[in-house]
């Protein structure tokens, strides 16, 4: 393991000040499931590891019907998966969280860490994208909010400055009549990364689709929205033909590579299959939601 000095600020402002002081020579530690691997492998060799684990009041999941959901930087993936608030109002996020690694890893890993790691295959990222999540960042010159749709810039790269921290993720209130679903396609069912991940969200008014979001994981340098596929769905009922047409457009939006987990043509084909399946399932969920009292 790479050797480093350890910092453990107690407040967010202290953390920001320390990060400003040590800059590129420091790495932020949250749950550590990515960073410890990088330190053990020697991919990262910082002089300082700055743990935010003891920063007060970053571990929360809060909901209200006007502002939506706020997830603090220290909320674990397991807490998100099992949160009654998330399961009730944003079930697709709980579903996606439950596909990440194992219970043991999910008890350590934070949702914010999955976002900051910015892996193209990060399992919670397509779900966060279809839910229009935003990141609240704090840095030496104050704070800003960045929609996740503009947050990722490449594998492992985000718009965050090295002196910024992700303080919380904010999700707008869900609109009534929506259904959403995430499908993780991996070679093994357990402890494997996604070959392709697809999330779809559909909002229905009666039979008509009034809003749609489709996000793809592991098929481009970042998780991406399939905007043309979304537009294709809006303004008409979600039929198998409509889902098929949208899946064509999602497949065209994918720019996958060939690696150990799958070839580019295989991934493109799976984007098609999974997008169609995901849209139809989201529509089913939206319909059953509409029928609730």
């Amino acid at each position: 393991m790479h050797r480093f000095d350890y910092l453990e600020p107690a407040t967010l402002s202290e953390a920001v000040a320390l990060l400003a002081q040590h800059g590129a020579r420091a790495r932020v530690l949250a749950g550590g499931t990515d960073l410890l691997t990088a330190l053990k492998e020697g991919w990262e060799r910082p002089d300082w590891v700055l743990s935010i684990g003891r920063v007060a009041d970053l571990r929360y999941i809060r909901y209200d019907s006007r502002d939506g959901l706020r997830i603090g930087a220290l909320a674990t993936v397991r807490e998100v998966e099992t949160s009654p608030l998330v399961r009730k109002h944003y079930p697709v996020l709980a579903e996606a969280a439950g596909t990440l690694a194992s219970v043991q890893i999910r008890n350590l890993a934070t949702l914010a860490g999955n976002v900051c790691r910015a892996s193209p295959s990060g399992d919670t990222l397509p779900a966060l994208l279809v839910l229009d999540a935003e990141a609240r960042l704090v840095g030496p010159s104050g704070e800003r909010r960045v929609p996740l749709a503009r947050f990722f810039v490449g594998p492992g790269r985000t718009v965050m400055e090295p002196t910024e921290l992700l303080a919380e993720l904010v999700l707008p209130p869900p609109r009534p009549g929506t259904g959403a679903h995430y499908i993780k396609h991996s070679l093994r069912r357990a402890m494997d990364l996604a070959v392709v991940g697809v999330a779809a969200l559909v909002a229905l008014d009666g039979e008509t689709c009034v809003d749609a979001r489709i996000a793809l994981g592991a098929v481009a340098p970042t998780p991406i929205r399939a905007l043309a596929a979304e537009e294709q769905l809006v303004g008409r009922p979600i039929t198998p033909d409509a889902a098929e047409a949208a899946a064509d457009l999602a497949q065209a939006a994918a720019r996958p590579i060939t690696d150990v987990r799958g070839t580019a043509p295989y991934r493109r084909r799976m984007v098609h299959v999974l997008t169609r399946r995901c849209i139809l399932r989201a529509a089913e969920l939206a319909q059953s939601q509409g029928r609730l009292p």
Partner: protein
Amino acid sequence: MKRPVTLTINGERQEVAVEPWWTLLDVLREELGLTGAKKGCDRGDCGACTVLLDGKPVTSCMVLAVQADGRQVVTVEGLAAPGHLHPVQRAFVDYGAVQCGFCTPGMIMAAVALLNETPHPTEAEVRAALTGNLCRCTGYAKIVQAVMAAAQHGGAA
């Protein structure tokens, strides 16, 4: 530079001086002589190092000892008094769920954590809870049977 951390391990408060880059697993095994938790992969993949941290199962190879400062750790050594077995341990013996035994402490800790939260799990819930525990010997069937049987006999700690 080493710094002191206080861990409550199997109910006993212990102070240990640790380097910042030492994992909880290494401190348990090398500094405290608690070799129940095993080092299979050292990368979070195999679950052999599973312990309960503040009651929750975690891979102790993916936790720095400094992160565990002030917290509660339960290892397989702490499940039952010397000479006794926890119901989950008993079931592993009775159902032949142990072969080489390397995965066993991690399996048992993951199973105990499940039964603490969900005393009467379905088989699917048992399999989901053990997703992060690899076994190269048994083929898992007997492990799952053992956990189901322990649940029937009230296996929660």
